[in-house]
């Protein structure tokens, strides 16, 4: 005797709030990874590295590594890591030179930097890509921090630039370029975690 078909699943009473695509990568995909390890800037005291570009169809994530060679007596320094992404400090204000500036530049001239972080970024309509968003930062102590970033929007073919500047710390505007094709190929390698379900 065959069983009656199962009733369709009830609509979940509590739907998870999904953050928009310009704030985080798609949760239902495995990224393609670009195995780059870049050093964007290095002085005798400080270094800024960038690794691990993780690409999706909607954009790419990467990790900034902020390094201080040794504790500097008398210096107030979390790299400006929290100043780096807002937290109440005006990047154009009186402490502008202490604001660690980071950005990505596409070959067609479009760019996204950390100078326009808004607390309400995840509300409102979709912004024009590219945009840059701080996802997470982790620091073991004063000497080493990892900052996880999300760039909304994929670059066009051509050079893809990563740019930093930190005037008060003797880091002039510095850029490293990679071939955007690496990112686009990695984005094409991203796969969905759940293939389309079979029809019930």
């Amino acid at each position, binding site marked *: 005797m065959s069983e009656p078909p199962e009733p369709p699943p009830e609509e979940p009473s509590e739907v998870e709030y999904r953050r928009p695509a310009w704030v985080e990568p798609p949760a239902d995909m495995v990224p393609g990874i670009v195995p780059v390890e870049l050093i964007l800037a290095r002085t005798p005291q400080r270094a800024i590295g960038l690794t691990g570009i993780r690409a999706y169809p909607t954009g790419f994530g990467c990790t900034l590594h902020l390094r201080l060679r040794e504790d500097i007596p008398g210096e107030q320094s979390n790299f400006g890591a929290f100043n780096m992404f807002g937290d109440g400090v005006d*990047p*154009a204000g009186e402490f502008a030179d202490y604001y660690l500036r980071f*950005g990505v530049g596409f070959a067609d001239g479009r760019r996204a*930097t950390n*100078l326009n972080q808004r607390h309400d970024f995840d509300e409102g309509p979709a912004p024009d890509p590219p945009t840059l968003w701080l996802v997470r930062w982790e620091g073991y102590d004063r000497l080493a921090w990892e900052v996880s970033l999300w760039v909304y929007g994929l670059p066009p073919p051509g050079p893809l630039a990563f740019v930093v500047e930190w005037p008060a710390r003797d880091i002039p*505007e510095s850029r490293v370029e990679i071939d955007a094709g690496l990112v686009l190929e990695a984005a094409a390698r991203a796969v969905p975690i759940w293939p389309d379900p079979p029809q019930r």
Partner: protein
Amino acid sequence: MSFFVMPAWQPPTGYRIPAWLRPPETMVPGIVPVELLLARTDTHAVLATDLRAYPTGLEFALTARPHPDQLQQPRHDPDRPHRLMYRDLWLELRFADGQTVSTDPRRWPRTFETNQPDPPFLYYHGAGGSERGWRSPHWLWGLPPPGPLAFVCQWPAGQNPSSGVEIDASLVLEAADRAVPVWPTG
């Protein structure tokens, strides 16, 4: 050409406390030259201090202090005594024309945060302290009429009859006349 373009300045959009819940921001107050002992037990005292008058109202601090001997006692939880002790400390002001105002929130109009209430209205901006003392900034919106002005508190809650102090409201009104704007107009 620089890669980084500084953003345009944007004015702050923070919430401002409505004018009827705080002293005027651009005035220097007139000082009311009294400190008032409102209630006292063997172990604690309640005072009204730092009275400052403006044309729109009166600012003061409701403070509570333990007797110095209390500080020597070992305490299981140094926070607990003062939090519980002052929890039900409500203040009432009684005017010469019979009006009264109180910080008991049950007596506040429901919409006081968005709709300007008719004066007088008595508000307090939180409270803080430690076992050494507790302080709560208060604001009376609207000046009292001439005549007696009583500060009354019922504390410890429910145990003693209410106690308080009466002053001459003219002390407050004269101090309000002495308030000056920080940036004179004209």
